[in-house]
């Protein structure tokens, strides 16, 4: 059949898996009814299969050259011996190696040599591992040793911080500290003890109460200030002096009560009352005292 009457590209596609779907089924239908096309396809099939076979032969040749490299490396027996020594080979394969050892002295010597190496490597690995374990132990000990001074320093810092904090809280928020800070001794020469008798008596009571306070006899001071406060409304003194004694006594009674355990009245309520009284000499101190009493540090310190 002249070449002009068939499409060689189409046959090539058909034979080399380049044709599928409708084109393939259409071409196969043509092959069924057209003897000439079928003959041509079979002829070309021979050619393509021949090319494939030839290509495979070339590949086989190429493999031979690769195999030459393996032969030169001469590692096949080594590999075999390694599989034998590592227990990869069992049953018939193992027996075959053992038979070969009996038959070939050189091979038996090779196996013996590799066995020595293999056992040596195994022992070395074990030794390495033992040393590794030992070095891990040393490292751990060194880490512990290196860590100890740091831990000690950290602990010391923590202790210092802790002590410092505790000291700060105690110095500023303990009842004793607050009482000492907020207590205001009577001004010298301002006891207003001179003058009418009742005024002098009030002055002496006020001074006696302060002395009790300064001695740390807070229950005594509390009673003394409280008594004075009860007397003051009826004492015949001027208003300025009365206010002075009242405000001083109220504040010192509050501080005396604060120093007592338990306080004889509600400290915060009294402090709030003084803080709310405009013109009270201790109004601002009462406000500050309230803030301290409501602070968590106060609860921590007491």
């Amino acid at each position: 059949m002249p070449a002009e009457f068939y499409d060689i590209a189409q046959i090539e596609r058909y034979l080399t898996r380049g044709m599928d779907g409708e084109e393939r089924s259409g071409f196969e239908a043509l092959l069924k009814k057209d003897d000439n096309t079928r003959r041509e396809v079979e002829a070309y099939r021979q050619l393509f299969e021949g090319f494939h076979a030839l290509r495979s032969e070339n590949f086989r040749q190429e493999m031979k050259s690769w195999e030459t490299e393996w032969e030169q490396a001469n590692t096949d027996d080594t590999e075999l011996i390694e599989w034998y020594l590592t227990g990869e080979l069992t049953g018939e394969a193992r027996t075959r190696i053992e038979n070969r050892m009996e038959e070939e002295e050189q091979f038996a010597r090779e196996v013996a040599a590799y066995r020595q190496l293999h056992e040596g490597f195994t022992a070395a690995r074990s030794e390495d591992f033992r040393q590794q374990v030992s070095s891990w132990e040393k490292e751990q000990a060194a880490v512990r040793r290196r860590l100890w001074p740091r831990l000690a320093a950290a602990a010391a810092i923590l202790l210092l911080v802790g002590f410092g904090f505790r000291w700060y809280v105690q110095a500023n928020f303990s009842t004793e500290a607050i009482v000492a800070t907020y207590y205001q001794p009577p001004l010298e020469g301002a006891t207003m003890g001179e003058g009418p008798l009742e005024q002098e008596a009030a002055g002496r009571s006020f001074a006696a109460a302060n002395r009790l306070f300064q001695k740390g006899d807070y229950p005594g001071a509390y009673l003394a200030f409280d008594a004075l406060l009860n007397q003051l409304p009826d004492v015949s003194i001027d208003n300025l002096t009365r206010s002075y004694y009242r405000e001083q006594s109220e504040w010192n009674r509050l501080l005396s009560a604060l120093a007592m355990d338990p306080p004889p009245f509600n400290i915060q309520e009294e402090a709030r009352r003084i803080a709310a009284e405009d013109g009270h000499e201790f109004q601002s101190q009462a406000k500050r005292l309230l803030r301290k009493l409501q602070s968590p540090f106060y609860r921590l310190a007491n």
Partner: protein
Amino acid sequence: MNKYPDDDRRLQKLAAGQGQEWKSLYDEMRSPFRLFFIKYGAMPPEAALELYQEAMVVLYRNVVNGKLQPPLASTLKTYLFGIGKILLKKKDNTTGDWGDDIPELPVAPEVESQQEQKAKAELVRRLLDKVGEACRQVLELAFLKGYVMEAIAEELGLPSAGAARKRKHDCLKKLRELL
């Protein structure tokens, strides 16, 4: 979905007939194949090596003629070992003690006898000797070395890939006429 994307990529390179890729595969699979067939096929080491080369040829043929294409249903290693199993069964009619290492292949590799292959190759070799040097060159580049048309055009100094394609078909027809 590709189950073995790495092997699929490798298959594409192998299909392009890249010699270095085939050598790398050959060197990589040689030891495990030998061990497997010495161990489970109870083969002498020399026979295992022969079987390996035969299996590689079958793999090569199935890859370059497009019978094996991505996405692969098994790894290339499994496929190659599967070819080895089939070849061994054909040869010795043995069942082998394979264990579960190599599962049955989802797509059986096409295995032809070496004799059959030799006859087919010999036919084309004779025809190539007769077709003339120019045609021999283009046909060898196209069908034995797997060059694409652009590469053939460049190799033979032809003006375009189309010119290379035309020459290839002309030469193929000449070969056909020689049959």
